[in-house]
């Protein structure tokens, strides 16, 4: 079995991946590879299947065709654990950001060296640590979910539109988180509809086009 820390093999790879739903092609077939220390940016317009691709790669949806390998091993079960950020951020309205981060850590494990308070501070939620998520703005909720990624131990991140809902500072914050993540040897696959240019040192891009039915 290949070593997951091995720099030579991809952390996540997909071969011939395609999704068809009720006879309608959603995306693919496509190949992709994500290596440690890089960000793969998936660009495409609305409806090009970016979100579905991310859910398939995360193991949340079964692909119609093709296979996914995590660190060279093909298995549905081996795709997890990973840091996953979607439009539904996974936050419970009644909980505070601090409680939310504790829940994330219980599920995904702690990243050593950064406390929940420090993670929330670094995403700009200082002073909101104990306020129910219900009372936070959309951008602040996004920041809370990003703090969750920072607080937990995952080396592979799959982020759907990480820049959405954020102000200019927030977008710089996402760049900073991604840069630090790949510097630690992590890898991230992010989607974007193309308006925002990630300012990260190692970005590879992939374009998704609408599939003709």
């Amino acid at each position, binding site marked *: 079995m290949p070593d997951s820390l091995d720099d030579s093999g991809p952390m996540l790879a997909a071969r011939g991946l395609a999704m068809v739903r009720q006879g309608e092609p959603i995306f693919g077939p496509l190949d992709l590879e994500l290596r440690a220390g890089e960000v793969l940016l998936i660009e495409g317009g609305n409806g090009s299947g970016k979100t579905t691709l991310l859910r398939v790669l995360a193991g949340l949806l079964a692909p119609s065709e093709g296979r996914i390998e995590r660190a060279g091993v093909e298995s549905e079960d081996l795709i*997890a654990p990973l840091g996953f950020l979607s439009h539904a951020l996974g936050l419970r309205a009644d909980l505070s950001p601090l409680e939310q981060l504790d829940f994330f850590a*219980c599920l995904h494990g702690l990243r050593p060296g950064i406390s929940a308070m420090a993670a929330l501070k670094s995403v700009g939620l200082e002073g909101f640590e104990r306020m129910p998520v219900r009372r936070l703005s959309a951008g602040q909720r996004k920041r809370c979910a990003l703090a969750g990624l920072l607080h937990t131990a995952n080396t592979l991140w799959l982020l759907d539109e990480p820049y959405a809902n954020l102000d200019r500072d927030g977008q710089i914050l996402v760049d900073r988180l991604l840069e630090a993540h790949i510097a630690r040897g992590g890898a991230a696959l992010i989607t974007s509809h193309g308006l925002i240019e990630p300012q990260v040192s190692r970005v590879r891009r992939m374009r998704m086009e609408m599939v003709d039915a």
Partner: protein
Amino acid sequence: MRKGSVLSAFFGVMRRDALSLWRRRADALNPIWFAAIVITLFPLALGPEAAKLARIAGGVIWVIVLLASLLSLDALFRADLEEGSLDLMLTSAQPLAVLAAAKILLHWLATGLPLVAITPIAATALGLSPKALPVLLTSLALGTPIISVIGACAAALTAGLRRAGMLLSLIVLPLVVPVLIFGAGAVEASLTGTSTTQPMLLLAAGLVASIALGPLVCAAALRLGNH
């Protein structure tokens, strides 16, 4: 307890759900209020004849507990699905069955256990013979977790549907009928002086089976619904 271990995930899910229940404790108390109200209605509807009430008290309490348990099931997995935390559970390294088990256990602690706890008051109010009370309590203690498990499996199947309440009842009620029959049957047996061993053992067997299999079925249903 190391964060990210199976145990920490189990207690993490329980703690989060307990916290959000506590912050919505008015909603969480709904099943208990429902049970209390229905129990007080029975003497009003059937008249104050104590012997008549006492004869049906065991069955009445069982039916009320069963229906009250269903009230809070509808929302069991809905929040997880809608807010996206189900995705976070599925993308963690933890087995979903363990996380589902945590949710089921909390459902029982928040609904089944309080219902069992108010049963002595309900039994007194309906004039149930004191000698049948221990049997009623034991049968409820064995039966309510089964209701939570079966209900959670149905809730997992219907979590993605709008207005699933009716469908949920249609799925759950036929499946829990045996629990009701053996539970109420045990109380009846204790009143008529026959042995309660058989229905109690059947309930206990059902409990063991549902604890062993329920979380697995529930996890499979959740994955199905999320696809």
